[in-house]
């Protein structure tokens, strides 16, 4: 290990903030929601507040700073909604695929459906998502592939066969 990198005290990731200000929390979470496609400031505000409420209820974990914990909740919130509307188990590979489909850009108006009451917009979104959800492999059909035996050449074996052929027994 290159010790000199550690001794400098400069870490690759910025140092964690133990007690982040509201400004920082709203700023980072807002930026995250915008990257996910939520552009309406009111929707960003509503989602961020919901995330912060839920994050506050979570037990503290030393591995994650408060902001990281809140960001994890963003994903949870999205997954929860997707699991409900698409009737998918949590956690599951299909749910991750649904999240990927949602974020892939096939349905840029998805936040509208998220905030709208159930109706045509939601149905259209769900149809679009169902088509876009990736299917990496077909369902498995287990087949056996028995290991074959390849018998090496053996001089002794050859002599034995010859012996049997010549003298029987």
């Amino acid at each position, binding site marked *: 290990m*290159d010790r000199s*990198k*550690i001794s400098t005290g400069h*870490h*690759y*990731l*910025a*140092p*964690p903030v133990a007690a982040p200000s509201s400004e920082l929390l709203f700023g*980072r979470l807002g*930026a*995250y929601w*915008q*990257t*996910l496609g939520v552009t309406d400031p009111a929707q960003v505000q509503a989602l961020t507040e919901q995330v912060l409420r839920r994050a506050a209820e979570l037990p503290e974990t030393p*591995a*994650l*700073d408060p*902001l*990281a*914990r*809140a*960001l*994890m909740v963003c*994903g949870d919130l999205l997954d929860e909604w997707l699991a409900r509307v698409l009737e998918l188990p949590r956690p*599951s*590979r*299909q749910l*991750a*695929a649904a*999240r*990927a489909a949602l*974020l*892939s*850009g096939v349905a840029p108006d998805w936040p509208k459906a998220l905030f709208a009451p159930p109706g045509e917009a939601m149905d259209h979104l769900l149809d679009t998502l169902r*088509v876009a959800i*990736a*299917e*990496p*492999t*077909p369902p*498995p*059909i*287990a*087949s*056996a*592939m*028995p*290991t*074959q*035996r*390849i*018998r*090496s*050449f*053996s001089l002794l*074996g050859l002599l034995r066969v010859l012996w049997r052929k010549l003298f029987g027994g």
Partner: protein
Amino acid sequence: MANSVQTPEPIGHALRQAGFFALVILSTLIALGLLVSVFHTDGLSPIELLLLLLYAILFSWICISFWSALMGFFILLFGRDRWAISRQPGTSPDPTAPPPRTAILMPIYNEDSQRVFAGLRATHQSLVDTGQSDGFDFFILSDTRDPDVWVEEELRWQDMVRALDGKGRIFYRNRPENTSRKTGNLEDFCTRWGGHYRYMIVLDADSIMKGSTLVEMVRLMENHPGVALIQTPPVPVNRESLFARILQFAGGIYGRMFTAGLNYWQLGESNYWGHNAIIRIQPFLDHCGLPKLSGREPFGGEILSHDFVEAALLRRAGWEVWLAYDLDGSYEEIPPTLIDYAKRDRRWCQGNMQHLRLAVSRGLNGISRLHFIMGVMSYAASPLWLLFLVATGVDAYLQTQQELVYFFGQNWMPVWPVSFAVEMTTVLLVTLTMLFLPKLLALLLLLKDAKLLRAYGGLAAATWSVILETVFSVLTAPVLMLFQTKFVLAILMRRAVGWPPQQRGDHMTSFKEAALAHGGHTLIGIVTGVLSYWYVPAFFWWFTPVLVGLILSIPVSMLSSSIALGRQARELGLFLTPEETEPPAVLRYLAENLEDDEPVLPVLRDQPRSRFVQALTDPYVNALHLSLLPEREPPGKRRRHYLEGLIHHLEEEGPDSMSAAQKRDLIADPESLQRLHALFWSRPPADAGALP
């Protein structure tokens, strides 16, 4: 046990093989007889015995190649082989049976993703052109370990699915562990998804296949229920360096004659070359589970070169294996330089040497054994030729040391030494004829087909190309002989030959690279030249073709890697191939896909410094990657600790301080992946440009 194939008639088949081997044995015996008559006058010395033995082995090896080429020449001259698989009527498929489904498999390992997917798309486009793509699914079977390439593959796959509306037809998976390499990769497919399909067509990372060829392969399999495997001959294409263009020309013009000749005597006992072949999945499942060989490497352990063994096992079980020499539209790319070619040889050499043991395994068919021996001889011939040359030099030197005695015994008349110049010249001429006549015959074959002749640039250009290719092969043969000898010896002595990985794309060989690779060859050439000129001057002149090749190996290797020279040669009409003069649609598609790389996925249009970091920062890439991870049990305590350590390592020192394996471990774990995504967003690094 397979259903027996109706044709060819067993007697006719046996007669063909008997006739072919009779020619091989007879020509070997005649050449040996001439050599024995020279050596035998004053009794055989040990060195002469060695020379005879080596000559017998090497000459019979040349004979198989020569007679195959000659048979191929006559087949192409007089039309198709009536017993070729494509000419046999076969049986009509059962109309009540469901239509066959075929999986097109592309096993990949840390390849250039852009090229892999461009090739696969080209094959897909060509298949769609046939209007029969419904029966085919595509599988990208990744064994990639490099995390950046892994993420790139996932994005390229998703982009291909989107662009071609390929959901449920184009699949991708990355194996958590690449156990047993390519064999394990294919076995994993067969045991998990093979049940969905009747056939699989195995491609290589640089394979391209015409859609009509894929359809025809399936049709042949349907019509011949006793056939388990049909191999198509892949034609080398797409390279621009002089070296590769010469090889592409040689592969095109001579290759078709050799493959026709191989099919002439192998018929339903042919071989599998590892890719560009169609395989019936059920017999493959039943008979091709490869065992580990007892003992240590090089002859024990995992079977490295699986293809020959799988063909032999299918044959052992009674299934037929064919070479469809007349199916065109099967392409591959070759190494661009002499050094890359040698590097590929190094990888193949160990697998082929292992076949020495398999050739004497019990229960295999005779022709399968011959395939193994031919595989071994592809590499073992080099040290044997080297030994032959050294022994010839030593013998020549010993001859010069003998004083001639003209009067001995009761003879009062001098007894003059007998000259064997005629016999020796005959042996030499026969050997040279066997080596070079096929080239002339291949040229003659072009005269039969005006269109093909034009595609090779016309008679004058093709003739010059054959002459120059011959000179080039004479110059490079001794270099390859020394390379392969080194590889064989290293394998036998269990020594590693340290070399960086082979570069697939066109690139120039630098002086440093050439000097490192060929410095020893040049030195050997100079020292041998001086020694032979000094001690055996008569031998020196015979030896010059070998010496020139070795002494010039550095400039030849560098110049032949030149793309500019390759293009100039093309402008002069040299080394043209039909695929260059009139590229088939599938190759045009490939060129277009590579040129107009306009992904549907916006995230692919970015060229981030690291796809690994992108998988941690970009919510879409992160989610897609997460969705493609296999569902596994959560890691145990010790593994969890290890992953925690890696996360801290990344937090503190960044991705550049981590090995590829460490990075892979991190993004292979769903929990770490999600946690790092949150960490990167909460504490963005200075260089994470994608993060707002």
